[in-house]
Each structure stands twice: as structure tokens, then as C-alpha cells.
């Protein structure tokens, strides 16, 4: 099992902030921001020392909860400070990006980080569509087309034009190309039928997140079936499971931490906006409809003492089939850094060495 640390920057707001997305920009505290990015590097140096295989970053906007609106900037900054760890950029939100620019920047990053890059491409959560005025009804199509264009830009040796549905370029010929050939290990992130089919068709990995093992297993099973249909079999390392974990010395302490957590949704929206999103957006797990809006806190699927966690990881491997765990060892939006560091140390010394061989 490969282990990835999901880095969310941990902005510690000096005052309580309104929960609604978007959070007013005027409430931002620049000293707290500067401290958060400094702290990120110190934390990741420790993460690397503990022996994590990857550090992952993601793209989120207009909120302090995960302070990485440009994951490529985060990834480049991290790559420059850390020397060994693989940087998992999970990932650019494709439908509101310029796919050619994404292909160029990832090729640069892969080369500058000397091949330590892993890429996840995704459609983004429902609120992200509003960030850059993306029509949610077009998001799926733009994602598929954008992902295909990124792959083409990485691999086509001759200048080419792209006569797409949503993107049009008369001439594309990127420099540099990625260091890893034909391109960095790439994952289509998401549980949807479309995302799994895209990954299978293009021989990419698949990434699922947060849901209970049995539910996520529906998506990974569907992905493996589609891969078989396309005549290949993914390795366990081509399936990422991102999850929340609460590890403590004892099961009782871990359960107490779970009870103390807020049940607030990561991104709350005004009722009128939320209702409109519900009618314009659609999501599914391997074809079964799911709500586009998360109504409560994201589930924490690993909870317990080191022994309990090791068994849960074993079960995750069996049920979900994942060979990479991308973990938040503390609720992603929490600024309680002492608890996070304690969890990191406990996980790094008592769990990590025991789950490598799973």
C-alpha cells in the first residue's frame, strides 16, 4: 500500500468566519495566510521524514478551508522544498481550465521535479463550477474533452489543431514535454460512470474519495470491469482512495474525537443556490444517481487505535481494491495543528510501517 498525505494548508482564522461559500475575501488575514504556507512546508518536511510516499494537493476556491486555488503553484512550491516525496496533483479542475495550459504546466512541473509528479484530473465539486462561471450542465462534457486534449498535448509529436465541442485551438505543440513518458501517472478522479469509462478507455488510473468502502467499491468494480472490456487490467496502484482518518492511542480516544467533530458540510451554500445546483448538476456512482450537494460532514472511514486502523486498511484493500490511500489525518478544514501533528506522528510510527505490505 502506498500512503499519501493530503495537504490542505491549514489556515488558522483569527476570528470565526461565516460558513457559507463563498467566504468573503475581506475576512482574509494575510498574517494567518503567510503562517499557513510556512507551516505547510515545515509539516511536509516531517511527512517526508516519516516515509509517506506522496503528498497530494487539490484545487478549491473562494474559501479558507483548503487554501490552494492553484494546485500547480502549491505543487511547484512543495517540489522545490522537498527532495524525495512524490507530488500528487489531484488535480486541476479540468472543465474551467485551459487544457493546453494545464498540459504545459504539468509537463514543466514533472520535469522540474525530476519525474516526481502524479496527476489526477477531475470535474470538481458543484460549488467550484460557480468559481469561473462554468455552466454545471456542460461540466461533464468539458471535463472529458479537456482530459482528452491534455493527453493529446502531452503525446502528439507534431503541431496539431483541436476542433472540439468546447475547446478550439488551431495550433498546439507544447514545450517541454513531460519527463515521465508517455506522461506522468495519471488518474481520472471520480466515482461516476463517465469518469470510470474515460479512465478505462485511456488506460488511466481511477480515484475515489470519502464514501464508505462498499459504496466506493461499486465505482472501482465498475472501473475494473471497463478496463477488462478495453483489454487491460489496472494494478492496485492505479486506484486511489482518499479518506478521512482519526487515529489515537486507543479506540475509545479515537471514537471520542469522532464524536467531537462538527457535522457541518464542507461547503454550505444559500438555499436558493443549492436548490438551483441540484437541478442543474447531476452526479452518479457507477451509474447510480447521487446528490450533487454534500449535506453533512464528509464521512471518516478510518477510526481507531493503530491496531484497528491496520485492520481497516486491510479491509479497504480487499473491498475497494485501492493500492494508494490519500489521507487527511484530521478534518481537512481544522486549524488544530497540535492534534494534527500528534496524529501524524502516531500514524507515521505505529501504522505506516505496518501497512506497506498490505
Amino acid at each position, binding site marked *: 500500500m502506498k500512503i499519501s498525505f493530503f495537504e490542505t494548508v491549514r489556515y488558522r482564522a483569527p476570528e470565526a468566519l461565516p460558513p457559507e461559500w463563498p467566504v468573503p475575501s475581506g475576512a482574509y488575514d494575510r498574517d494567518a495566510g503567510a503562517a499557513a504556507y510556512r507551516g505547510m512546508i515545515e509539516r511536509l518536511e516531517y511527512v517526508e521524514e516519516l516515509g509517506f510516499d506522496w503528498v497530494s494537493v487539490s484545487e478549491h476556491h473562494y474559501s479558507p478551508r483548503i487554501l490552494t486555488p492553484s494546485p500547480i503553484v502549491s505543487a511547484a512550491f512543495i517540489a522545490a522544498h522537498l527532495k524525495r516525496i512524490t507530488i500528487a496533483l489531484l488535480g486541476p479542475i479540468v472543465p474551467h481550465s485551459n487544457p493546453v495550459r494545464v498540459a504545459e504546466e504539468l509537463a514543466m512541473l514533472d520535469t522540474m521535479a525530476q519525474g516526481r509528479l502524479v496527476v489526477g484530473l477531475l470535474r470538481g465539486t458543484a460549488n467550484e463550477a460557480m468559481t469561473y462561471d462554468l455552466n454545471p450542465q456542460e461540466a461533464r462534457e468539458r471535463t472529458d474533452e479537456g482530459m482528452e486534449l491534455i493527453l493529446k498535448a502531452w503525446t502528439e509529436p507534431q503541431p*496539431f489543431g*483541436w*476542433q*472540439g465541442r468546447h475547446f478550439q485551438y488551431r*495550433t498546439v505543440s507544447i514545450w517541454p514535454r513531460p519527463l515521465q513518458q508517455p506522461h506522468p501517472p495519471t488518474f481520472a478522479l471520480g466515482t461516476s460512470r463517465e469518469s470510470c469509462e474515460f479512465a478505462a478507455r485511456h488506460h488511466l488510473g481511477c480515484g475515489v474519495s470519502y464514501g464508505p468502502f462498499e459504496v466506493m467499491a461499486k465505482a472501482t468494480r465498475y472501473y475494473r470491469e471497463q478496463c477488462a472490456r478495453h483489454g487491460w487490467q489496472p494494478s492496485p496502484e492505479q486506484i486511489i482512495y482518499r479518506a478521512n482518518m482519526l487515529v489515537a492511542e486507543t479506540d475509545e480516544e479515537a471514537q471520542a474525537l469522532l464524536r467531537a467533530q462538527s457535522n457541518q458540510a464542507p461547503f454550505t451554500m444559500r438555499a436558493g443556490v443549492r436548490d438551483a445546483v441540484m437541478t442543474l448538476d447531476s452526479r452518479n456512482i457507477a451509474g447510480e444517481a447521487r446528490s450533487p450537494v454534500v449535506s453533512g460532514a464528509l464521512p471518516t472511514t478510518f477510526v481507531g487505535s493503530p491496531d484497528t486502523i491496520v485492520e481497516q486498511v486491510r479491509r479497504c484493500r480487499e473491498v475497494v481494491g485501492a493500492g494508494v490511500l490519500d489521507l487527511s489525518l484530521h478534518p481537512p478544514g481544522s486549524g488544530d495543528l497540535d492534534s494534527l501533528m500528534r496524529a501524524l506522528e502516531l500514524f507515521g510510527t505505529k501504522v505506516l510501517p505496518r501497512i506497506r505490505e498490505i
Partner: protein
Amino acid sequence: MAPTAFREDYVEADGVRIRYMEVGQGTPLVHLLGAGGLRLTRAHDLLCRHVRVLAFELPEGPLPEHTLARAVATLGLDTFDLMGTSSAGAAALGLALQEPRRVRALVLEAPAAIRPDNRDADLERRLSGLTTPTLVLFGTADDVVPPAMGRVYKALMSNCHLVFVYAAGHAISADRPEAFAEVVVDFLERHEAFVISRAQTVIHP
């Protein structure tokens, strides 16, 4: 919109009778159709708003070397644009090589002239000397001729431009007629300058 009224006719050269359909005004575009024969698509309707389309049904089997050139001359076309689809890509390239001064620009839709299992070294050598502005189109979902063949034309011909039409199969003009016609018309009008976008992005003036 009412269906476009094509006029059907025949032209004879070297004793070979070639059926064709014609419609539209302006610069002539001779389209050599692929193995499917004289089946017109919505792309022809769109093209004929801008150019005079003459769609040729090639007889089965190879034609004598200069027959096509003579047929086009018989129709009184001095200079013309040329398009070849799929299996007719080879005939279009042959005509462009014979008549470099008469063929103003060349469009190859999913050409089958160069295939991974059937490379023609002599053709490829001759193509390296062809300077006619050429647009090579492949659908990203073509499962008849690998779209990667596009890069061979691009590498060989000094004035060749490769465009992938997203989500189109081998029959690009049938699968995505609007996307196909837009880039073809733009290329025929502007040749290599077609890389410069003229799209308006003003939302409110």
C-alpha cells in the same frame, strides 16, 4: 432549412464516366468521395454556403494517371480546391502532385493513403516535395485509420496542418458536420493563416 438542391451530372475523360453532384457558388471545391460512394452529408450543405461543391464518385479500381485531371479540366475548372475523403485521399494526393499549380489547397479527411501496415515509400518521398497548403483532419475516435497517421503527413509536407476533430470517428463530416465545415471553410479561405483566431469574445459591447 430546406435541403440543398444538388444537381447530378456526369463527366467523361479517357473513356471513363464519372458521376458527380454540384451545388453552390464561388471557388470550386472538388471533393473526391470515399468508398461509400455518392452520399452527401450535412457538411456538404454547410460547405456550399461558402464554396461551389463538386462531389465526385470515383469508379472502383485505380484510374489511369491523368484521368481525374482531365475530368476536372473538362468541367472548365482552371484552378480549384481539392478534398479527398478516406480511401480517396490517395487520389487527391495524386492529383495535387500532378497539378501543383491548379490545386490551390488540399483537404484530406481521415486519409487512408498512409496506413501503419501499408506504408508507401514512393508516395512518402513525393509528398516531401509537395508545398500545396494542406489540411489533414482526423477524428479522435477513428477506428479505421489510426489518427496518429496524421503526424506522418504533417512531418512530410512542408505546408501541412493537422487538426483533430474531437469525438468524431472515421466519417468526420457525418459525425460532426459543423465542426468539420467550419475548419475546412476557414482553411480554404485563409490557408496557413487559419491558425489566427477571428472569434469574437466580447460578451456585452
